[in-house]
């Protein structure tokens, strides 16, 4: 860039700025602005006449690094081109580089084997470690995925993803495993994934509740068990522990329901003989049944079957925030599996957001800031100023949905210091609803849940995904939002081609004698999707996680402006900007005092010195008092950028010799490091 061109650019920028912001001004005011522009032009001309030519050359490099120990900034020019970049959406994206079937569920040995093989195949992108052992001694294996060449994993903002804290919710394993596979196989082919892994870390724990996860996949179980961790518990209060577990009495690999013929019973066979249904008319003469309970034995002789199954507390009520003894018994973090997770998270403050896969219901349950006051009080409260404050919740939502049918707005009023977190979550989950199509955003609960601890104790944005959702969305023919028995059976017959149902049959129970069993769906129908649906769901959910990670904050330094002050003194202004949705630290992290503020420092080099001035608002252009900058003192300035936010800084420099340069460095724990150098050179314009 030559000197003359630079001068023209400066002048043009000033003129443009005035015109843009004052299009509707009265002619008289416009005339005044034109005079101001001419005045600034004269100042520049004076500087030029005095022999000062200003070069605003900027080199920007951005990397994620903690303030204390910045990672080496990747130089895009020096970085090798993406090896196998695929530009065509219809082209090959690496999926056969690591072939894997997404049409089945995997037990512990299989899914951890896949994790190990992935790490071996992609050592430049993945590390594998055990974060601890389960109660039964299984390793909780975690993949750390990032492009190692661009920095250490712990120096980049990170996404935490775990699956299946509830033992039976094993589609969380496939979803998180799919995400790992997607990232690794596409890195060389997909520009989006490539950029993401260059600046982001993913911690992926596919199976959290490993003992129960393995059991659920490999052994006969109902769709609801085993759900908890393997802490022995006395569920029925008889003084014995786990002594009445479920049993596959007939050895067919399924746990179904037991009935006995009883003339006084409440049940009968459906007309198609495939289900047990309630007897509606007491006068009806029909073969009747009494329901005995789920398949198994009454091991403790108390008249109840399977009432003291394996497992202790609900692990997703065992985290410290909002914990209660009723649900999280016996104490917060009592389970080794949850404790390993939380201790890992505590030791990795680079975790910026988290996903926790559950089922069922197709919900995006996000953590929102605490409500400022009850709903009733909100209605009574005077609206805040501005159009937003004067519209009701319903009106605001309706307005948003005129242009975006997926738009979501949380019905919650929060304290001003938490408003940005709520705004961010509204924006993120609206996009999530768009990506996932039939998922519904809703505010998540507290009550000792993992995602409550992640947000409320660590200050990281947290999302609990309720996957699948029975087959409601697939089987609901009349669109009434629920699935009748008939609709369900049609779904089994047509979409599952008959697979997935156990018709009633007679069986001789060793203890109970002649009974009937069946009339139920098989496993992997209601809570976990049949295999054919696994990949569809995993892909969409991976896309949502990737979108969120792409919106992690990224600090840039832009819009350099150099203004002569007096003699060889010059103001250098610069803007720190975060154009992503997430802020550089959450409101919650600030409230917790866990947030590390962003920091900008400046140094002058080679014939240029920075003049020490007090920090504070500074008007560099006396004719434009609205254009304020924050003066940077020698020790640097702290700040925080919200999502889509920017902040203007300035520094006064003295050009001691004929040329020199000043360097701005902005460091943000989660937003990375941005460096910009501005060269100043004294000379006569040619």
């Amino acid at each position: 860039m030559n000197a003359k061109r630079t001068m023209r650019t400066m002048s043009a920028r000033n003129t443009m700025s005035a015109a843009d912001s004052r299009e509707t001004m009265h002619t008289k005011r416009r005339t005044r602005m034109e005079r101001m522009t001419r005045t600034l032009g004269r100042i520049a001309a004076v500087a030029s006449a005095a022999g000062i030519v200003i070069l605003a050359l900027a080199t920007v490099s951005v990397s994620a690094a903690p303030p204390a120990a910045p990672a080496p900034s990747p130089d895009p020019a020096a970085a090798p081109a993406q090896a196998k970049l695929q530009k065509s959406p219809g082209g090959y994206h690496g999926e056969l580089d690591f072939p894997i079937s997404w049409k089945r569920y995997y037990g512990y040995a299989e899914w951890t084997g896949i994790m190990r093989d992935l790490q071996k195949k992609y050592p430049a992108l993945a590390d594998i470690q055990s974060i601890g052992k389960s109660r039964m001694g299984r390793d909780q294996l975690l993949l750390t995925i990032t492009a190692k060449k661009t920095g250490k994993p712990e120096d980049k903002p990170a996404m935490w993803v775990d699956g299946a804290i509830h033992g039976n919710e094993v589609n969380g394993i496939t979803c998180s495993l799919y995400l790992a596979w997607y990232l690794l196989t596409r890195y060389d082919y997909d520009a989006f994934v490539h950029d993401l892994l260059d600046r982001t870390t993913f911690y992926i724990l596919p199976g959290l509740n490993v003992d129960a996860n393995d059991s659920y996949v490999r052994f006969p179980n109902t769709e609801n068990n085993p759900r908890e961790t393997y802490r022995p518990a006395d569920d029925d209060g008889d003084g014995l522990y786990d002594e009445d577990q479920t049993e596959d009495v007939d050895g067919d690999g399924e746990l179904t329901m037991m009935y006995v013929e009883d003339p006084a019973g409440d049940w009968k066979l459906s007309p198609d003989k495939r289900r047990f249904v309630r007897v509606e008319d007491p006068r009806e003469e029909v073969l009747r049944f009494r329901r005995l309970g789920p398949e198994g034995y009454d091991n403790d002789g108390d008249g109840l079957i399977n009432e003291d199954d394996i497992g202790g507390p609900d692990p997703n009520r065992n985290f410290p925030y909002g914990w209660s003894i009723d649900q999280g018994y016996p104490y917060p973090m009592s389970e080794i599996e949850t404790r390993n997770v939380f201790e890992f998270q505590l030791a990795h403050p680079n975790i910026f957001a988290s996903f926790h896969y559950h089922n069922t219901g197709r919900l995006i349950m996000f953590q929102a800031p605490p409500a400022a006051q009850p709903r009733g009080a909100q209605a009574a409260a005077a609206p805040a100023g501005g159009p937003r404050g004067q519209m009701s919740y319903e009106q605001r939502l309706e307005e948003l949905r005129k242009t975006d049918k997926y738009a979501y707005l949380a019905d919650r009023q929060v304290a001003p210091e938490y408003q940005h977190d709520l705004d961010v979550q509204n924006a993120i989950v609206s996009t999530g609803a768009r990506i996932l199509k039939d998922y519904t955003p809703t505010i998540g609960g507290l009550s000792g849940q993992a995602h409550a601890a992640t947000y409320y104790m660590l200050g990281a944005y947290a999302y609990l995904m309720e996957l699948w959702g029975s087959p409601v969305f697939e089987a609901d023919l009349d669109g009434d939002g629920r699935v009748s028995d008939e609709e369900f059976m049609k779904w089994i017959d047509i979409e599952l081609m008959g697979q997935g149902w156990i018709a009633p049959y007679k069986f001789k129970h060793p203890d109970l004698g002649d009974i009937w069993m069946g009339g139920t769906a098989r496993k992997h129908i209601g809570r976990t999707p049949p295999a054919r649906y696994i990949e569809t769901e995993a892909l969409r959910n991976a896309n949502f996680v990737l979108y969120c990670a792409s919106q992690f904050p990224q600090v840039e330094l832009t819009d350099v402006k150099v203004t002569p002050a007096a003699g060889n003194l010059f103001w250098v202004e610069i803007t720190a900007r975060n154009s992503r949705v997430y802020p550089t630290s959450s409101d919650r992290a600030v409230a917790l005092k866990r947030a590390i503020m962003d920091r900008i420092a400046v140094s002058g080099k080679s014939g240029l010195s920075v003049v020490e001035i007090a920090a504070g608002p500074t008007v560099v252009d006396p004719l434009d008092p609205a254009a304020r900058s924050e003066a940077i003192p020698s020790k640097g300035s702290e700040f925080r950028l919200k999502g889509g936010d920017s902040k203007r800084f300035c520094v006064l420099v003295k050009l001691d010799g004929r040329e020199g340069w000043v360097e701005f460095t902005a460091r943000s724990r989660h937003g990375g490091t941005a460096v910009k150098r501005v060269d100043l050179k004294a000379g006569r314009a040619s």
Partner: protein
Amino acid sequence: MSYDELNDRRYGFGMSSDWDYLQLGVWSITTELWNPAKDIPGFPAVEPGADEAETRLRVQRALLKWQDEKYGGKLFVPWKKYKHPELGEGEIGGWVPLYPSNAWPGEPLLNVCDRHFRFELFRAGLMPDIVINDARARVVQAASGPGKYRIIEVTASIENKGPLATHTARGATLRGNREDVAWLIVDRDKVKFLQGTPYQRLGVIDGAMRVPSAGGGGGGGGPRAGGPESPPEDPLYPESPAQRRFGGGAAPAEARQGGARREVRWLIAVEGDSPLKVVVSSQKGGTAVRDIKVQ
């Protein structure tokens, strides 16, 4: 109970005594040991001053005098001038840090230990203690014909002889605590339970001590009224987790007569001379076992 960040911030939430009583439901006391003005044998009474500060000053003077006389001044370092590398000129000295909040060695320490030792022994003596007073097995019908089963009635009389109940009122509401149960143990393959399930729920068994009522109106009626006249217990859970999960229907038999005693009965058909054993299990009151001979 759970910490509420909006409401509980001002409390010292998380103390062990809170936890023990509120989350475990056990009797808990935090004992703040050592009050020098009371725990030093022979320490002279100090006349109260005009205000609290004056009284404290008088006590401090008396303590200094006492440690000078009885401990040769070893508990206190006299003040002396000192130049701190960062804080500059000042004085340094005062009580040796171990002693302002801990019992002084010798007789005061012994005195504190002995007093609390006796108090803890007293408390230990209040604990529930489950015993089986009597257990019998009576043949209702002998084996005859091709059948090889005898019909036997088993009865047991159970009592909590300890002063306190087997759970506090708080404890009876908490997950993790269960009511006391009585099992009849017989060879599983040689018994049919005709009346009564293998284990029976006993509820919380009162202790022998009558607890004064906070509301007045005579004895009893406190957290848990003692005596045989107290009403039958509610179960620890209106519905057990298992019942909640699987619905009502058949359930273990109950023997919750209230008070400090329980009478339990089973009617069983037993093959041959299978041994019979009654086991009473109480989380706080211990386990009692009785082998029964058929009469």
